């Protein structure tokens, strides 16, 4: 015994600090043990039940309970990212929105004369040739006699055509030539209702300047649309060449547009308006734009306490071809928002008081992973060309402008310029119109991918407007009103105003209730866990402890049982080979061992028993005093000859 004191010590250490294996020798034992001792409810029943039917029933029930738990928990997990909506109403002092007001006509026609006279001449000529319309009898705005000059640049660049659909021939109405239509025909009006009497169809042809066979013909069912569209194309060309400062001067000044202003019971004047140049609407004026850092707010609702302005709409100075309606356009928006006045503006009638009652709603969506919206727009790969906060509209416009610059080499007039680009015009980009129409068509058909890239913003403010109109000024007050307003307009001007040149606008809060619609996460982790707990508890009275148990038993223990068995098999195989290698092992022993060396009955039986019993190991009397059964000791000796030198030694001594 003195030969190996170290080994003895390690053996003792292992005995006192037992690293015990699984609770059962075999998997079935383990299962049985688990079922009897687990905290979950079904398993015990399986083991305890008598009778095959009953046991089967309990197995089924337990399994279905497990299935239910898994299903329900999966449902809970899948619905984790859902949002609940809450609506709060708060009565408070409300920030007044920015109100942008534009004249429908962008530039004073009288001032634009030098730029547009050529174009207008051409247009009139076209009208006369196509429709036999001559301006002689109608309102004469400028001298008619000048306009049989030579230049027909505009028609050469974009010819107006009359199309005969069946023969696919077109007559150039200006030159009278007939030509065959090549390329594709696009109808700008949605459906070809008029295709029966197709000789009424009028349109214009856009060709690729580099490759003249690439042409697209745009047709319109009505000449009104065709002429306007055609005029607009040329107009944009001309305007693109005029610098911004000049354009601002050509348009209306604040004094021109605003006659009176009244806000929250107090007078205001042009200082409270910020100029904002819109490419299609000229100079617009934004009330309460917040540019100087202060945003006005209202603490009283009602029409007296909102914004009241009288606008001067100089109808005589309107461009006859560009705009065909009279009045002003307004848009109510947030200070950080870009006013897309051409898209969502409200039109104001002249000779009337338009009262616009507002109701304020603020909405907020949850961003990812709840919904696909963007908080700031930073995560969207489109550069924001407007220096305002992100909105879907801004993204779409910026995206289109970028595509335009990329494929046509110049920027479209109605949208802001990206860095390093310039607006399209004939001289530099003779091809741009064809390119633009092609691109715009693609954009509308969602082929540019803009609609996919751009996401809506997560939070937005909305002012719901209730618009109503009253006659203004009333017949009895008209007289003094117009007199006083003329005085207001400027003491020098002795001309009395006409009531169709005036529009009265009232924008006010109907109530000071702010409605705030917000999404909140319906689930939090705490609630999810509670729900899990509820499910586990309901079906099986299970908890995390049970889950740990399951992991312990089904993975660690089972695995170690399997491993142990495999290890023993391997060992056995190794021993066999070794013994076969040296020469003649005793045959009988081999047979005996094979019979006995079943780990089920020999090895693993023991630790389980012991651990189960938790017997204090007999420490003081380690060796049997009673004569041990001979086979056992024999078998042990033979089985672990190499591995257990200390026991062997003990035996020999």
């Amino acid at each position: 015994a003195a030969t190996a004191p170290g080994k003895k010590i390690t053996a003792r250490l292992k005995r006192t600090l037992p690293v015990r294996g699984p609770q059962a020798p075999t998997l079935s034992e383990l299962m049985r043990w688990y079922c009897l001792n687990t905290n979950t409810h079904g398993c015990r029943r399986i083991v305890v039940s008598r009778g095959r039917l009953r046991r089967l029933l309990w197995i089924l029930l337990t399994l279905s309970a497990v299935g239910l738990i898994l299903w329900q928990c999966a449902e809970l997990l899948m619905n984790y990212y859902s949002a609940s909506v809450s609506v709060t109403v708060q009565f408070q002092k409300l920030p007044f929105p920015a109100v942008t007001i534009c004249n429908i006509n962008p530039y004073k026609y009288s001032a634009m004369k030098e730029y547009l006279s050529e174009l207008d001449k051409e247009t009139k000529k076209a009208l006369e040739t196509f429709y036999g319309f001559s301006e002689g009898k109608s309102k004469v705005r400028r001298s008619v006699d000048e306009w049989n000059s030579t230049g027909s640049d505009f028609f050469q660049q974009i010819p107006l055509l009359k199309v005969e659909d069946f023969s696919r021939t077109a007559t150039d109405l200006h030159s009278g030539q007939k030509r065959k239509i090549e390329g594709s025909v696009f109808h700008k009006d949605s459906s070809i209702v008029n295709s029966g009497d197709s000789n009424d169809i009028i349109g214009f042809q856009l060709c690729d300047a580099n490759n003249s066979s690439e042409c697209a013909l745009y047709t319109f069912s009505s000449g009104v649309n065709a002429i306007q569209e055609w005029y607009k194309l040329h107009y944009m060309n001309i305007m693109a060449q005029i610098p911004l400062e000049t354009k601002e001067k050509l348009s209306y000044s604040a004094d021109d547009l605003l006659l009176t202003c009244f806000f929250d019971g107090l007078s205001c004047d042009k200082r409270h308006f910020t100029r904002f140049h819109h490419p299609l609407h000229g100079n617009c004026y934004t009330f309460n734009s917040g540019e100087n850092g202060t945003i006005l707010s209202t603490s009283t609702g009602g029409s007296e306490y909102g914004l009241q302005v009288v606008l001067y709409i100089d109808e005589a100075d309107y461009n006859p071809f560009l705009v065909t309606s009279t009045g002003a356009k307004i848009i109510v928006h947030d200070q950080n928002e870009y006013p897309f006045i051409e898209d969502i503006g409200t039109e104001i009638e002249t000779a009337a008081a338009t009262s616009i009652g507002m109701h304020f709603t603020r909405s907020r969506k949850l961003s990812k992973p709840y919904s696909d919206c963007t908080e700031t727009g930073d995560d969207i790969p489109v550069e924001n060309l407007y220096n305002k906060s992100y909105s879907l509209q801004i993204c779409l416009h910026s995206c289109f402008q970028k595509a335009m610059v990329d494929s046509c080499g110049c920027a479209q007039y109605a949208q802001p310029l990206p860095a390093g680009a310039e607006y399209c015009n004939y001289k530099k980009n003779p091809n741009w119109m064809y390119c633009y129409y092609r691109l715009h068509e693609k954009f509308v058909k969602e082929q540019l991918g803009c609609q996919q890239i751009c996401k809506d913003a997560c939070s937005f403010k909305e002012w719901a407007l209730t618009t109503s109109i009253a006659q203004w000024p009333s017949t009895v007050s008209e007289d003094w009103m117009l007199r006083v307003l003329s005085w207001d307009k400027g003491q020098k001007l002795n001309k009395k105003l006409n009531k169709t040149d005036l529009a009265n606008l009232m924008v006010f809060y109907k109530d000071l209730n702010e409605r705030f619609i917000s999404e909140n996460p319906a689930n939090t982790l705490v609630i999810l866990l509670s729900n899990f707990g509820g499910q586990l508890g309901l079906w099986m009275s299970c908890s995390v402890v049970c889950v740990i148990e399951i992991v312990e038993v089904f993975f660690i223990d089972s695995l170690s049982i399997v491993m142990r068995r495999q290890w023993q098999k391997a060992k056995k195989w190794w021993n066999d080979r070794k013994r076969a290698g040296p020469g003649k092992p005793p045959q009988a022993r081999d047979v005996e061992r094979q019979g006995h060396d079943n780990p089920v009955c020999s090895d693993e039986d023991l630790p389980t028993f012991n651990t189960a019993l938790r017997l204090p190991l007999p420490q003081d009397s380690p060796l049997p005093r009673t004569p041990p059964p001979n086979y056992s000791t024999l078998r042990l000796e033979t089985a672990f000859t190499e591995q257990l030198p200390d026991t062997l030694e003990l035996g020999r001594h």
Partner: protein
Amino acid sequence: MNLKKYLVRALHRLQKGPGYTYKELLVWYCDNTNTHGPKRIIKEGPKKKLIWFFLTLLFASLVFWQWGILINTYLSYNVTSSLSIGFKTMKFPAVTVCNANPFKYSEVKHLLKELDRLIEAALERILQPTPGNVSENVSPPLDLQLWNQIPLVLIDEHNKDNPVILDIFETNQTAGGNETAVSNGTAGDNQNSEDNGTTTHSETTAWNQTTAPPAPANTTTEEKKYKLAVKLCSHQGSNNCTYRNFTSAAQAVTEWYILQSTSILSKVPLHERIRMGYQAEDMILACLYGAEPCNYKNFTQIYHPDHGNCYIFNWGMDEEALNSSNPGAEFGLKLILDISQQDYIPYLSSAAGARLMLHQQKSFPFLKDQGIYAMAGTETSIGVLVDELERMGYPYSDCTMNGSDVPVKNLYSQYNTSYSIQACLRSCFQNHMVEICGCGHYMFPLPKGVNYCNNEDNPGWAYCYSSLRSSIKQRQICIDSCKETCNDTQYKMTISMADWPSEASEDWIFHILSYERDMSTNVTLDRNGIIKLNIYFQEYNYRTISESAATTIVWLLSSLGGQFGFWMGGSVLCLIEFGEIIIDSLWITIINVISWCKGLKQKRARARYPDAPPTVSELVEAHTNLGFQHEAVGALPRDEALPPEPGTPPPNYDSLRVQPLDVLSPDSDVE
């Protein structure tokens, strides 16, 4: 003695209980509790014991932490909203129709005659290019007393720094300096004047403080040189004056006229004012509700200070409110109104049309806030969607059910109407007005025992009113003290208009309507006065957002249970078990303390009588304790340990066999 007996009995009772020492108790608890963790602590080997001990602690703390979160969530009283949209039979809204003009000019002319002459003369002078040299008037002399109460002045701004105030009817010019602060003075000047009470509530200065840069320079050349202002003095002849500036003369004139006319009209008794307004039979020419004819008698008359006589259809005050069970214009209300524009007061209201408003039954119509216009000579169709918001009251949101908990006396309750935020704000203003100016404003109902303001009795009322009206503080007080109602109903209107009557039908329509109203064959109506209204429910006529509590007590309990169950498999019973154990341990403590005390006593006694025999109970206790303790060591793994008792022969092999196995595996690993 009794106590001792009781204690002994308790001791015996305890003998049946879990144990005599803390350790026993704890072990017993762990073994028998229904919570999942503790069982494992005592059933496994020392390493696992440790792991399970910490796991159990961790889980317990997790449970408490999450409980805290859940209770917090519950106490924050969140709500969830549910939305429903559809069509159902609903009460048709009350429809208030008024004329934009409050009184027939022909009826009030005798009251306003002086005023009109004054303003005409004033305009005559103002509109002349040079207001300085006025030719002597040819018209009959004006009653300047009315004018002098609240005069209009012209401010000459040729010299920016020193504006000159020109009185319109007196040729003497007063320099801006010698009056108190003139509005266009510097901001600092104004602040001073505000401090010492000679308040200048001129909006230009107020604006100057907020808007930093003036407009771009290119417009300065066209600067307007004259401005109109209303001079308001705290009482006549005093120097405590303020000039209300207007950038537009039109507005100045309107404001001035309103101030003057309210003063005049406030002296007229109510029944007289009602008589001067538009009568129902003159105004409401035709009425059709669904297929049923109705007439002006179906309307309730109400006197509205802004708009004179207003008529409310379906107010629900006397009879049941009408229901509408079909969408579409055919089943709604159709009205033909006459506003007789020729009879408007020229300076009072410049917009012409009918004012109408949809509101709930039994609520007061606040036309200035929620009303819309209908234009003369048109047919206005209004599709209605009822947008309701039903909220839960306290503690979920800060709203009021019926206004009884709002600290503002509701003056509109004299109309027998329900509480609304607008009523509260106006009552609040009127209460302030009465408090500060000593009289009530004409536009709002009067509290008891107070009169409306007028120039004779309260010469400074206009000054007082306009300073009160522009006071931000006063508004904030009212906003803070008023609460919105929990049930908020809005009528969303889709308004469309068409010309009416058409040129072809004009003649016969005017003829019939004139005949019906006036019994005359002459046409007394024209395009400028006639209005057609269609009010009906849309295809979807309601959108209701209703709130419900997101966290109820049931939710709280199930979440708490879920958490406890999830981490530890516990329930309320487990908590009770735990409580029981605590009581038990308290008992043990008590017993220990008692025995310790006894021991001390006996020690003392022994010190006196060293060989005093121990008491019986002491002996018994000592004995049982010892025995129990001894057993407890072995009883740890009680369940499985019991059947094979150690010491019997068979386990001997086991112990023999165990040894090699234990040693075996690591050794073989080495090999």
